[in-house]
């Protein structure tokens, strides 16, 4: 038994060493900084809990950005999961040219962000953009996507769904790991395609779905890059995501102590949700043993 423990530590040692060397100290430092006033250049001054107090009591943008982010997580994570699984199932079919289809669905998530943001500023353009010119074809005048409420928010959600290919690939890899023998047995039992999907494929895929849910949540709460480029948080802060506000506070206004406090509040929120997911996971995730 002790031998196995040693082996266990040996196997995870690369990560352990990396953690001790590069992650632990910055984490502890940022906890400390969250109790200081720190402008990055001058030495940090201890201010006790005043950053936290101010965040909770005097900063309306803190609450607003938190609500925007929660809303985003609530929309983007479930929709992204359903879409990702659905597409992976479809792309796992045995039809000619499937490699082409897979590449097509995966493409959006590999286009560099600079380019995809530029492309979408055209797609979503109210007068000459693709979206509204198609809507116009069916007689509807679409909104000014990126500059009006609430459309700016949904435009960003749409953009992130456009690049759902990344998680689709993970599901696809998961599908490829489902042993063919299980299907063979099911066919012998006379199960049809739908039954096979519900009773074999989806249960076998739950470890990957669980993974994507956890990672999707973590990423959704830290989402900001597209909002930073496309809307800069506007119109009227309706797309000021938590991490975008945090970025502004830290690197734009040089209020790093305050931003560290924000980061730790976010950390606690993410960990609570993750813990909740892990709590439920024994009920629905099957590890095939």
């Amino acid at each position, binding site marked *: 038994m002790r031998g196995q423990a040693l082996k266990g530590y040996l196997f995870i040692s690369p990560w352990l060493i990396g953690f001790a060397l590069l992650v632990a100290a910055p984490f502890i430092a940022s906890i400390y900084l969250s109790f200081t006033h720190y402008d990055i250049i001058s030495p940090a001054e201890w201010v006790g809990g005043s950053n936290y107090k101010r965040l909770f009591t005097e900063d309306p943008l803190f609450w607003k950005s938190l609500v925007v982010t929660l809303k985003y997580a609530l929309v983007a994570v479930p929709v992204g999961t359903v879409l990702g699984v659905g597409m992976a199932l479809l792309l796992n079919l045995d039809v000619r040219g499937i490699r082409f289809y897979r590449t097509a669905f995966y493409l959006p998530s590999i286009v560099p962000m600079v380019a995809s943001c530029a492309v979408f500023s055209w797609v979503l353009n109210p007068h000459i953009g693709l979206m509204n010119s198609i809507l116009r074809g069916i007689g509807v005048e679409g909104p000014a996507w990126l500059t009006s409420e609430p459309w700016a928010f949904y435009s960003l959600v749409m953009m992130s769904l456009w690049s759902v290919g990344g998680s689709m690939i993970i599901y696809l890899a998961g599908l490829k790991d489902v042993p063919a023998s299980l299907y063979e047995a099911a066919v012998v039992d006379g199960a049809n395609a739908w039954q096979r999907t519900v009773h074999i494929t989806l249960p076998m895929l739950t470890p990957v779905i669980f993974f994507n849910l956890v990672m999707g949540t973590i990423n959704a709460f830290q989402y900001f890059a597209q909002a930073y480029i496309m809307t800069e948080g506007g119109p009227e802060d309706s797309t000021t995501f938590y991490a975008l506000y945090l970025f502004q506070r830290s*690197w734009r206004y040089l209020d790093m102590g305050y931003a560290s406090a924000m980061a730790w509040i976010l950390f606690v929120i993410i960990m609570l949700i993750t813990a909740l997911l892990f709590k439920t996971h024994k009920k629905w995730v099957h590890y095939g043993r």
Partner: protein
Amino acid sequence: MDGERRRKLKKAATAAGACILAAFLFGWFLESPEPRKYPEREPVVFWHMWTTEWKVIVDDICTRFNESQDVYEVIPLSLPKGVADSKFLLAAAGGEPPDCMAEWHQVVPQFANSKLILPLDEIMTAEELATFRSQAYPIAQKISAFNGRPYCMPLALDVRACYYRLDHLHQAGLIPASAPARVATQAEFEELRAVLPQTLEELTEWGRKLNVFDSKGRLVRLGFIPQWFRMFASVFGGGFYDWENNELLISTPENLQALTFLAEQQKAIGFDRMERFLSSLTTSHGADWPFATGKRSVSIDGQWKVQQLHKFAPDIPYMTTPIPPPKSGGKKMAGWVHGNFMTFPKGAKNTAGAWAFTLFWTGQDNPERASEFYTRAGWLPPSPAIAETRRYRAYVREHPQFQTFIDILASPNIESTPPVPFQLQLYDLIKRADESAMRGSLTPEQALRKLNDEVDEILNRRKEFGHEN
């Protein structure tokens, strides 16, 4: 068994291929080219944010400086603007700042307050400082100031003025048929100046007449819309800073008047309609500038458009003037001006070299030499000494429209963003108040009151931490 062997062979081949690729890449990596042309000289590390055609000009200034002397070698590095500040701050915090960095974000007071950058009086000689104080345009000194000391050397200034499409004005019959159809000479420039609107009210009235809508009420051409609170505050005689008492001014009657005027204009045309039209223009670069494509008749824009129009759309007849003041209470030749400037981080290895380079660029010692850079790039100089050189005068004769911007540059009524240590935040807050008022989600009074409260809150928090301002 045969298959097994083949598989093993294949594996070996793949491994060998990978090793060769790795070796190849590594060898390639090691023979990295030596970027320094003068390895024996003292390096001057210079970071900036210019890209594309501007980067070419900046690189050229560096080359010229390197050729002009044999002590220093300037090594320029272009940083993407979105992350330039982060890199700069991290490098400075880590004790490895560049020797100088060209900036145009609203950061000087903030950096000065954190003692990240050096005051110029510690870099310049007393004589150079005196020259700067007596010669540089007042606005250049305002941009550079924090707590009464200069903290950056303005390289070039960005001034905005009204651009008019003369063909549109003629079509609409707004200027006499006898007025010149296009401007080629100084005289034609003067003649047209006299017939263009003298008050803001008159200009907005013209704008209404120049608007063109399609059958569904969408804007096809925009006559004129006054925009940007930060720009119009001083046009209405307001502004955000009292330079004599070093105090922020937010909720003043003049500022309220300016914001109210802007909101009314916006309302008249409809915010949504406006936004759709503006966002449809997609780019403002070169020939795609909506003014150049005929989608706008009167537009407020910077001096760089003069050169771009010359380059990309030479046939467009246009004219420029300062923003006209309102009928009562306003100021002439007012507005918001910004620019780009050189900063000198504390703890840099070669500040002396950085200063020599900056001096070479801005031509405080030799305006004639610097005038070449300024005319080539179409930059507005930080000092009239360059504007008065023979070469620059010739440039203005060639581009008569440039005179407008030089006139504005000397005006005492232009303003920069107030030199408070939270300048960027203030700038963002002013923009936000502006947006709320334009969208009508807040009345101008409410927006201004909210802005005032937000600024008070920042000031209070700063006092809590023991800062004076």
